[in-house]
């Protein structure tokens, strides 16, 4: 009866039981703490491994040629053939992401404003918010399929335009989310003060609220930009890829993720090295934009 731990027994009166209980609790606590530190180290280890692999293989291949020359076929079989680079892909990515962000940001901004200023608590607002979140996490390849059916087939060809539209669809929900979050943080007293001065609502929103939330909104735009710069799947079915430097939106256009994908699968070691260099470029670019965005957010606070 008293071989097992008796709940009615006051542990304080039984020093051995108390000490054992304390030891066990401390042990469990230590164990969990160690596991948590381990978990964090594992997470950091993966990041380190990815960056390390990228740096190792990417830097080895990264040089001025890769940055400035457009695609050339493999030099296998002909050592006098010129080496190629990723200039076509860099320019293509830059054009498509910039235009996609320019298209998606105003729409996202307006929707976020709608959710924060006009639709708090309304059914329609809830529905729009929900739909925006679904689009945020929707598989990007399905967006590629959608634009293929809607734009590529009627146009009769792949185009930078289709790729841009697919990326814009991905930008919109990111900007909506950050805009709404930032605008709801602005205290109502600010709004009331502006309206009390006689300003119409639209001026209040644009000149005061947007300005107050600007760095947060810009953060959202930068994050969206970084995200679409790395997207491959939707571009696979829309802008298709182009090995020649092209700024023409009505024809196929290259992009860094597509170039990486194709050259990594090309079967030729010199092209695969270029793919790693491209991977390094994309990752560095994306990480840099992310860090800048976070710094912006922090300085605001």
């Amino acid at each position, binding site marked *: 009866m008293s071989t097992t731990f008796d709940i009615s027994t006051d542990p304080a009166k039984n020093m051995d039981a108390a000490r054992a209980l304390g030891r066990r609790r401390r042990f469990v606590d230590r164990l969990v703490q160690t596991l948590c530190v381990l978990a964090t180290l594992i997470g950091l280890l993966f990041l380190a491994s990815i960056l390390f692999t990228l740096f190792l293989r990417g830097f080895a291949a990264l040089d001025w040629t890769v*940055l*400035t020359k*457009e695609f*050339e*076929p*493999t030099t*296998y*079989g*002909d050592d006098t*053939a*010129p080496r190629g680079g990723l*200039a076509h892909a*860099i*320019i293509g990515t*830059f054009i498509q992401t*910039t235009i996609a962000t320019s298209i998606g940001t105003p729409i996202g901004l307006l929707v976020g404003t709608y959710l924060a200023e006009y639709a708090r608590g309304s059914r329609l607002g809830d529905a729009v918010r929900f739909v925006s979140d679904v689009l945020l996490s929707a598989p990007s390849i399905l967006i590629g399929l959608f634009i293929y059916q809607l734009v*590529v*087939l009627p146009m*009769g*060809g*792949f185009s930078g335009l289709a790729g841009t539209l697919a990326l814009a669809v991905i930008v919109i929900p990111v900007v909506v989310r950050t805009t709404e979050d930032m605008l709801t943080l602005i205290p109502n007293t600010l709004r009331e003060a502006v309206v009390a001065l006689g300003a119409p609502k639209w001026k209040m929103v644009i000149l005061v609220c947007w300005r107050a939330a600007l*760095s947060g909104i810009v953060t959202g735009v930068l994050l969206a930009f970084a995200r679409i710069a790395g997207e491959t799947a939707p571009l696979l079915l829309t802008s*298709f*890829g*182009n*090995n*020649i*430097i*092209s700024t023409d939106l009505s*024809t*196929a256009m290259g992009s860094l993720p597509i170039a990486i994908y*194709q050259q*990594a*699968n*090309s*079967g*030729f*070691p010199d092209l*695969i090295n270029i793919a790693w260099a491209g991977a390094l470029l994309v990752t560095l670019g994306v990480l840099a934009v992310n860090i*800048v965005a976070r*710094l*912006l957010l922090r*300085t605001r606070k």
Partner: protein
Amino acid sequence: MNRRSLFALAAGTAAVPMLARPAFAQQATITGAGATFPRPVYERWGQAAREPLSIQLNYQSIGSGGGINQITNRTVDFGATDAPRNEAQLREANLIQFPTVMGSVVLIVNLPGVADNTLKLTPEVITDIFLGRITRWNDPRLVELNRDLRMPNLPVSPAYRADASGTTFVFTTYLSRVSETWKNGPGAATSVQWPVGNGARGNEGVSNAVRNTAGAIGYTENAYATVNRLITTQIRNKAGNFVLPVMETFQAAAGTADWTRPGFAADLVDLGGPNAWPIVAPTFILLPTNPVADRVAGSRNTMRFFDWAFRNGADAARRLEYIPIPEAVQASVRSTWSQVRDPSGNAIWTGSAA
């Protein structure tokens, strides 16, 4: 760092790529898509033709199935496929088909202790490996064939192309030719249902899969095996001889091709020549016979490009271990180009001077 300087910095960085853009002359561009099989040679030709023809080639190697798809949808100027289309299919899609080079499919293996071109395989054994009936490398049948080698006790890991591929088409055509079971089972196509093994993307994917797994076996176009220094095997051909995957045996097969079939669909698989490599195939270009007004220039330039390649590209092809098409066939090909007409019914190809 205040906001204004941050924006200025960003704007400055954005302007750099614009400044670095090289000046390129006004050049016509042709877009093609399809087979990865001939990609190295098409790209080399494209690079060489830029100067003399002022044509830039944008070739996307998305696989033969993709090439057929894109040209049927008229989203590119020409399609490239290793799997020839038959007469009915060509007529229905308003396409002509012509060959450009021939290439060979080889088997690659990763077996410790087994050197290049030493492993001997027969059609029956190859089929059984890909059917999953032979699961270990020291299976009695393999040991029997390779008495001079030490066959390791490793599991057999077949690797195949997961994307639609003309290389798969050629290889499965071979398997269907040598095995009734395969013909009635997975069959021959650019994409089949493989009973066993891992799928990888592109020739690179298969090369990678084989390189990284001891006991792996895969199939790939010859150029990729050579450039990646993969171990290839001998195969017993229809005449009963074990042949090596080298230029002589490829050319022996290519020499006996019958080019009179519709669409130039010469069948070079499992030929009877004593020294012939059993898996050789031509690769084809698909061109619309009725391009829309916007695509007429692209059509003309495609024909100019391949005309130039026929006359000047044989060396480049051979260096990449492809076999050029015989001159007589090239002349035949040019005569079929007269079927390509613009919307007002005039032939677009008017001869090499165009």
